[in-house]
């Protein structure tokens, strides 16, 4: 396949589908009890240096508890899939957990502004960055999910985004048109927060899927955190609603309010005060250290973090906000 142009930045992961097949061949398909704690999943599936993907959309339906545990476990030298990442990215930068980054959306928190600490971390040069777009990264995951070495897209063309990516420009064998080929991406591990799951990993999320259908299928290991566990009979009663089948899943962690301070559709809205507090305190590295110690490093479990953020009273307010209850 004749390459007309290509990005200058390196690929962090091997796009060979046969190597991925060799891994998936050995992955168990047995429908067994996969319940674990966040400590256990980080210990078992998220080692130093692994390449991580996070589900949801930055501060919406994110697996906060597992990310906190990654910081507490002092994970380093990881690769990260910077796709629609906002507060999740802010957290991993706070822990300086990764040094390789596929970047589509980073350092920002959308309308909330840019994270001062995330900017410092990325501008420091400590992190190798490869540029992509939201769709290009979704397409890379989709190619992996399809078991092929690359996907064809018509974005990135003609820009520095392509120049600083790992994509290649090739000619369509049917139309002769220039298209972009983006390499398949199989993360070592992904963590996705859902509304319901059974102990085997059959999972249901409600509302938008973002890129989680692709991420769940591309990742070699998959950790599910769920607002609540349900019976297998509940899952089987409505198979049309299932988002992720059990054989993709390695571990299931039950964590009510698990997306806090992010939004969880139909359950609770994001805690904008707490997120604003992050942005504010990040400006002063010393203050930020204390802040992190208080909210993450000195905390023993996610429930304790929730307590320090206002506990049930705060969560009730967020539930009312989400459900548009009149004051």
């Amino acid at each position, binding site marked *: 396949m004749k390459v007309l142009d290509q990005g200058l930045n390196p690929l962090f992961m091997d796009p060979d589908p046969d190597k991925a097949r060799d891994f998936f061949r050995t992955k168990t398909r047995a429908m067994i009890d996969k319940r674990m704690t966040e400590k256990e999943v980080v210990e078992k599936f998220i080692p130093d240096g692994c390449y991580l993907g996070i589900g949801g959309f930055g501060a919406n339906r994110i697996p906060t508890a597992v990310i906190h545990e990654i910081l507490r476990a002092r994970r380093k030298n990881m690769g990260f899939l910077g796709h629609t990442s906002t507060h999740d990215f802010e957290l991993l930068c706070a822990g300086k957990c990764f040094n390789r980054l596929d970047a589509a959306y980073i350092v920002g928190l959308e309308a909330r502004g840019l994270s001062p600490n995330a900017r410092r971390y990325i501008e420091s040069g400590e992190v190798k960055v490869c540029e992509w777009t939201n769709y290009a990264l979704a397409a890379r995951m989709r190619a992996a999910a399809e078991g092929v070495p690359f996907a064809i897209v018509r974005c990135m063309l003609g820009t520095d985004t392509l120049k600083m990516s790992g994509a290649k420009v090739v000619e369509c064998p049917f139309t002769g048109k220039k298209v972009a080929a983006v390499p398949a991406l199989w993360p070592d591990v992904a963590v996705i927060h859902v509304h319901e799951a059974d102990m085997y990993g059959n999972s249901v999320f409600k509302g938008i899927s973002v890129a989680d259908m692709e991420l769940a299928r591309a990742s070699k290991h998959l950790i599910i955190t769920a607002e609540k566990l349900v019976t297998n009979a509940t899952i089987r009663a409505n*198979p049309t609603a299932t988002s992720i089948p059990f*054989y993709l899943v390695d571990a299931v962690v039950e964590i009510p309010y698990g997306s806090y301070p992010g939004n969880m559709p139909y359950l609770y809205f994001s805690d904008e005060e707490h997120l604003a507090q992050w942005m504010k305190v990040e400006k002063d590295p010393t203050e930020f250290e204390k802040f992190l110690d208080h909210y993450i490093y000195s905390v023993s479990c996610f429930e304790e973090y929730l307590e320090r953020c206002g506990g049930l009273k705060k969560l009730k307010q967020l539930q009312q906000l989400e459900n548009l209850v009149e004051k």
Partner: protein
Amino acid sequence: MADFNTMEMMICLASRYLEDGKTVAVGTGAPCAAAMLAQKAHSPNLVILFEAGGISPLLPQMPISVGDSRTFFRAVMAAGMNEMMTTCARGLVDYAFLGGAQIDKFGNINSTIVGDYYKPKVRFPGSGGANDFASFCWRTMIMTVHSKSRFVGKCDFITSPGFLTGAGAREAAGLPEGGPYKIITDLAVMGFDEKTRAMMVESLHPGVELDKVKAETGFDLVVPKQVGRTQPPTDEELRILREDVDPLKLVIGRA
């Protein structure tokens, strides 16, 4: 020894190759019966998949279509063809059953036409999902009647890949690792030679001699020094098959 027909025997033999904790893509009829028997007899954690989207259903009865509502009755997920085929493509599906009008010594299968392509004697359905399964799944199996008209020196049309022209040919064509595993007929069980990838007799069914198998095969079979004897269906296998899997004899009534 228990009394059984050839369909019952082929289903029982096939079910023995389906290991616990593995995934199998099945069609209607005998393959589905073999998978259901395996689940009930020795592989409770065997995961049954249907190409149209049914994932691990609690099959209330034999489906009549791989897309009918039985194939996702109380399933863990009702997905789509894209989901199932890509699950196979990335290496998560261990076994698939195939069928066809012709099969050659390297396990290539014809389910498209008999005769000349542009003036066929018979037009068959074509690949359906067979070529996809044969390309993607780790181990493919076939249950078929053993006759010279099916076991041919050359397929009129290669619909689905076996080992193509032999050792190394799949890799050279760009196909993932995988290929034919067992061919189960009314006369014998055949596998494939590790080196040449040619079809090899593994065991002869009770009362069947090697010459009979050779006579019904249109190419030279590899014959190892020791050719085993097929262990016939056990009473327990037959009981489960007849009472729990196919009580209406939709499949086992055919032979």
